[in-house]
């Protein structure tokens, strides 16, 4: 029951008509501000019932205040640094450096050809090898990537989608060579292809084949790699492509509902896999809105899992959030300013209760990070963790009229948008028709226009420009990486057991045409040193390739 607070309402009216009205006639407020200037108990439900049912306690339904009972007082969030470039050997050096600096989990960036299932020597790979991530052509590269890094001691997050199964099979095989049982492996594959069609673009196969591969990976991991997070659903990429905060939650949740339905349809029990679903959201720069977003998302997710899908385990209701600070708000102008933006974004994500985080380096609007800029990005997290005090109290902004009102509003808006998508036939239908893509573009365009018309100020871009004295050193990837990789592939193909490679690929082809789980056949091909491109070509032959809807 919402209290009426009659006296507060009266006092508010007096204040609005008195001192507020008086000053507004003399000194109007700055333009382009949110409509509501102040929040009071009138904007929130202050009843005991609301607290118990909608806010509650951390680690309990509805998870608004956090996923674990002790939150950062028990264990700080996992601190990652998204990195990978050039060859596996060079990236391995960077990972070892980062581990020495105190990262608590690795986050692997793959180059474009790897993400799209082409070997480095493929004509389409020209110019792209090792540029935005590390080039992985076969298990041999993966062995080099993790050389000297015991896989039972580290949690590894891998940004890989269409070929997620192939890369995870390689990871399992590396573990076996190190003597680490697959049951001990910890980490995440992104494995969220739906958002690739709408936002990130590294799709290979059509949606329905991708959905099958996602569900097959869920099923395989349940029995064989039980500690692995089998999907990391991307709200991040949707938001970075231009979506609003509400769209970030609603579109990614709608995608999640589609994956869950697929997994239920192949016979899995919700509590068998829901606890291994993880998320990646943006940590954007509007600190307070972001705090409310994380809280609203946790609450809405818990409700969907418990009430819609009937999940019974507490761990199934928990929204496991990795966040990445927003790359799209970083500016190429006065790039050192980005270090401050990243600090604010990271601070908001911590106040919002993220479980894991990767911070952008300040030079990322220009190039991939240097060792120095990557270190500063990590130090930013460490300063927040150990010096700011923000990690010492659980959900410290709860009870703020504004935060609670925003949490309610974001949850409500996202829920409505999810219902709208359901009425269209769900996420897959909304993607196939191009609807989601167009909605994201509309938001992106409005954002751009608001900057160009000065409604939104970006320091160093449309205000306080000039005086850019920064002299930033950039990482340059040697263009010979492609030649190095090409030579490695040639050498590999001359040494491997070709009969086993062909037999493994023939088996994979057969399984792809059936409804059997694809993982074991993929693992066999990987262990035979079939290349990533060979494996993906085999699957392309059966599944075909996705043809994009072109919206502008």
């Amino acid at each position, binding site marked *: 029951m919402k209290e009426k607070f009659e006296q507060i309402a009266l006092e508010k009216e007096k204040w609005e008509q008195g001192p507020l009205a008086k000053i507004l006639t003399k000194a109007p407020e700055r333009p382009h501000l949110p409509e509501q200037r102040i929040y009071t108990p009138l904007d929130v439900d202050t009843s005991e019932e609301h607290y118990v049912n909608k806010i509650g306690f951390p680690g309990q339904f509805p998870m608004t205040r956090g996923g674990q009972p002790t939150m950062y007082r028990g264990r700080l969030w996992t601190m990652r640094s998204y990195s990978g470039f050039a060859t596996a050997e060079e990236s391995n050096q960077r990972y070892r450096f980062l581990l020495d600096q105190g990262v608590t989990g690795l986050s692997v960036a793959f180059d*474009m*050809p790897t*993400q*799209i299932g*082409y070997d480095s020597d493929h*004509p*389409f*790979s*020209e*110019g*792209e090898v090792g*540029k*935005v991530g590390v080039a992985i052509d076969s298990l041999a590269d993966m062995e080099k990537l993790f050389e000297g890094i015991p896989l039972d001691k580290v949690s590894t997050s891998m940004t890989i989608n269409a070929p997620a199964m192939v890369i995870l099979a390689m990871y399992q095989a590396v573990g076996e060579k190190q003597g680490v049982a697959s049951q001990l492996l910890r980490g995440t594959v992104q494995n969220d292809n739906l958002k*690739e069609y709408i936002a*990130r*673009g*590294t799709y290979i196969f059509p949606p329905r084949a991708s959905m099958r591969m996602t569900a097959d990976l869920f099923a395989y991991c349940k029995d064989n790699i039980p500690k692995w997070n089998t999907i990391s659903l991307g709200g991040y990429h949707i938001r*970075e*492509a*231009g979506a609003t905060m509400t769209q970030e939650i609603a579109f990614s949740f709608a995608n999640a509902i589609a994956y869950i339905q697929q997994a239920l349809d192949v016979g899995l029990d919700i509590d068998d896999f829901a606890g291994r679903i993880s998320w990646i959201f943006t940590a954007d720069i509007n600190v307070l809105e972001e705090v409310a977003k994380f809280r609203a998302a946790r609450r809405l997710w818990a409700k969907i899992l418990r009430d819609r899908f009937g999940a019974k385990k507490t761990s199934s209701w928990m929204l496991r959030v990795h966040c990445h600070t927003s790359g*799209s708000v970083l*500016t*190429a*102008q006065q790039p050192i300013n980005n270090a401050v933006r990243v600090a604010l974004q990271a601070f908001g994500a911590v106040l919002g209760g993220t479980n894991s985080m990767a911070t952008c380096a300040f030079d990322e*609007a*220009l*190039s*991939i990070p240097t060792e120095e800029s990557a270190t500063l990005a990590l130090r930013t997290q460490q300063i927040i963790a150990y010096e700011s005090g923000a990690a010492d109290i659980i959900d410290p902004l709860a009870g703020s009229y504004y935060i609670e009102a925003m949490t309610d509003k974001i949850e409500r808006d996202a829920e409505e948008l999810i219902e709208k998508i359901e009425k269209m036939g769900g996420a897959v239908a909304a993607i196939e028709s191009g609807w989601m893509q167009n909605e994201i*573009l509309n938001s*992106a*365009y409005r954002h*751009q226009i608001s*900057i*160009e018309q000065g409604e939104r100020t*970006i320091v160093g*871009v*449309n205000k306080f420009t000039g005086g850019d004295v920064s002299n930033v050193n*950039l990482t340059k*990837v040697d*263009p010979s990486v492609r030649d190095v990789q090409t030579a490695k592939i040639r050498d590999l193909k001359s040494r491997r057991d070709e009969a086993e490679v062909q037999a493994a690929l023939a088996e994979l082809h057969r399984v792809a045409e059936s409804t059997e789980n694809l993982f074991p056949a993929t693992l066999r091909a990987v262990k035979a040193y079939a290349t990533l491109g060979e494996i993906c070509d085999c699957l392309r032959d059966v599944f075909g390739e996705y043809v*994009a809807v*072109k*919206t*502008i």
Partner: protein
Amino acid sequence: MSKTIRVLVTKPGLDGHDRGAKVVARALRDAGFEVIYTGLRQTPEQIAAAAVAEDVDVVAMSLLSGAHNSLFPRVVECLKEHGAGDILVIGGGVIPESDIPFLKEHGVAEVFTPGTPTTVTVDYIRKAMAERGVK
């Protein structure tokens, strides 16, 4: 004689980041140009063929993956091979300042880096086309 300026907006290479390309495409369209968007993963050969087939005045490329030094000049070469070397070629994306002189030497008329207002690109195209007698 005046005709509407026709622009092919395209994404060469494997990069999937198309927010910039689509926002620019829409801004060019709102500025009155005829805009054709190719979608992702276009090879230089495909881009040149599309530019010729669509009879465009401008090819506008967007790339954030770092492959610009390889792919932008290849597009210029392919246009020449198709007898369409007169098409204005421009580019944008995450491109370090230090790479811009190289790209210009290889036939890319202008490069727009992050933060460029869409109006700057629109004005640039208008001016360049006016000099060529296209409005």
